[in-house]
């Protein structure tokens, strides 16, 4: 799991992890009666895990120490309250959180990075992690949490707990290299991991691979495919809420054929097609799907190898292009 902090643990975390939540709460209540400043210090310790703060919410309220907590802890508590207040679709919490501010950004990073280690604590805790992930991705474009989110998704899939909102948040990055964090699960020894990875990467399910054969080869093959097609991939916004077979990321074949970079967000080429290119595309789109794939693959390979040859090839009639792509031609291969 890509989460948590190394080093000596905070004592509250230590008790919670070793003896359980009730023991942690008891310790806080008993110790806090006589040592108010010490429990505040423990809470404000930068090493504290989010799960301990979450667990001790009612004790914090009871001790009236909210104002003495660090900015990180106060923001995190507000965030928890806001989410727990919104029980129904029509409910609106009166807590306002400046989501785009840097202190909120840093707090959410702490919540997710340390909270991931305690995923499954309770439904409400997991939901807070989901929403923290969603805000970090959508509002702060914080890609550093992608490995943590990917790990959480697969961990929950194994446990059979809810992960659909996390997947949705993950793909909101619309960053093709994020797919690598999913792809690594193609190598997993667990068939559940492989099935989910293949589903999210839009690869056909293959019993042979699920059974564990050629996992490493499949992973390498996907990475090669990703490298080859990265410039032409775009994100569709499809999720498990939309379809049982969502295609979160798709290939723009037209752009690949013309070797034009695609915007991952809009699916359109970054530089719009010229009039000449539109003519090429009209011919290209007359072809069968398999022929289009052959043309796009050949075009991309040739363009990478020799721009001059590619420039000659793209000006040929599309029938001649496909003939060369299928059977080769000495001066171009």
């Amino acid at each position: 799991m890509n989460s948590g902090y190394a080093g000596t643990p905070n004592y509250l975390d230590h008790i919670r992890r070793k003896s359980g939540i009730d023991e942690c709460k008891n310790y806080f209540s008993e110790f806090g009666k006589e040592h108010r400043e010490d429990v505040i210090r423990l809470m404000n310790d930068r090493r504290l895990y989010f799960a301990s703060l979450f667990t001790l919410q009612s004790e914090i309220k009871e001790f009236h120490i909210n104002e003495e907590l660090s900015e990180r802890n106060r923001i995190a508590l507000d965030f928890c309250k806001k989410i727990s207040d919104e029980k129904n679709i029509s409910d609106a919490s009166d807590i306002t959180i400046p989501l785009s501010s840097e202190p909120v950004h840093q707090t959410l990073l702490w919540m997710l990075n340390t909270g991931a280690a305690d995923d499954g604590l309770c439904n409400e805790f997991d939901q807070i992690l989901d929403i923290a992930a969603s805000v970090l991705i959508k509002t702060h474009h914080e890609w550093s949490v992608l490995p943590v989110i990917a790990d959480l998704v697969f961990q929950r899939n194994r446990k059979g707990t809810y992960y659909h909102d996390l997947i949705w948040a993950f793909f909101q990055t619309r960053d093709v290299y994020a797919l690598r964090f999913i792809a690594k699960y193609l190598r997993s020894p667990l068939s559940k991991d492989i099935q989910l990875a293949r589903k999210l990467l839009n690869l056909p399910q293959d019993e042979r691979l699920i059974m564990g054969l050629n996992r490493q080869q499949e992973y390498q093959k996907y990475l090669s495919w990703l490298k080859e097609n990265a410039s032409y991939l775009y994100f569709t916004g499809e999720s498990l809420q939309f379809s049982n077979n969502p295609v979160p990321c798709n290939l723009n074949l037209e752009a690949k054929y013309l070797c034009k970079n695609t915007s991952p967000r809009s699916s359109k080429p970054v530089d719009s097609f010229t009039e000449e290119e539109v003519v090429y595309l009209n011919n290209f789109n007359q072809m069968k799907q398999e022929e289009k794939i052959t043309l796009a693959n050949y075009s991309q390979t040739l363009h990478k190898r020799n721009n001059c040859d590619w420039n000659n090839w793209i000006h040929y009639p599309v029938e001649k292009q496909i003939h060369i792509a299928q059977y080769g031609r000495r001066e171009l291969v």
Partner: protein
Amino acid sequence: MIEISGNAVKPEDLLTDYAPGAIEREIIDQIAKSTERYNYDSIEQFKFEIKMRKEIIDSSYELNKSDIGFATFRKSKCNPDFWNRTEEGGFLLKDGVKASEAIRDIFANGSKYATECATAMMIVYYKALLDIYPETLFNKLFSNIELMNWHHIDKLLKEVGLMKKRMDYLPGDRRYFANPDVDPLTPEWQGENVIDLDGKLYYGHGIGVYNQEMIIKALNENRSDGADESAYLKDTAGRPNFARLADIYLNSNS
């Protein structure tokens, strides 16, 4: 164009069973005028699709009028007499409970249930089939219902989870309004699954029965600060495999 057993059929020959102004007539008119070929093995198979589309629409209105609440999967609830709530927030039919009774309970005791829009769509499909199939057949076919979204779906209904671009969008289709700039605090507003009721009105659980503009407005009100992309109706639809469901029904009667 409608083709039955390979022969083109005029809509006039098919309309006589339906009262003027009935939604069935609108559906038949629309597919008859389409450039797409709608092929059926028999007149019975054709009539089944029309009937099921009508039942999907009726069940949508019925569910909208029930007291079923909206809740995210994490906060979903169900009547424990009929369903077990899963770790993911779905509802799993309890052992020993008849599927027909469990589905009917959602409509009768809606206040004991709360869920997301995708689950509501599945409830609509099951209720539509329950109103067509003999109860014994329904219970035999659907003895392991899990209501959630498209991720856990009965094999007989898996096609409703597959969204495809269509030549025509018909009453009874499942459609989807996407909300790309949704507020990250409320991911449940990332989109709305709906049933097309008549080409103008849509039923979406948590929103209600409204036209396209109103649903888009509701979604747009739940976008993030600085959002620049409006919610929109996606150019796709999900449909059950009417022919397969019809064949099961027709074979059970033979």
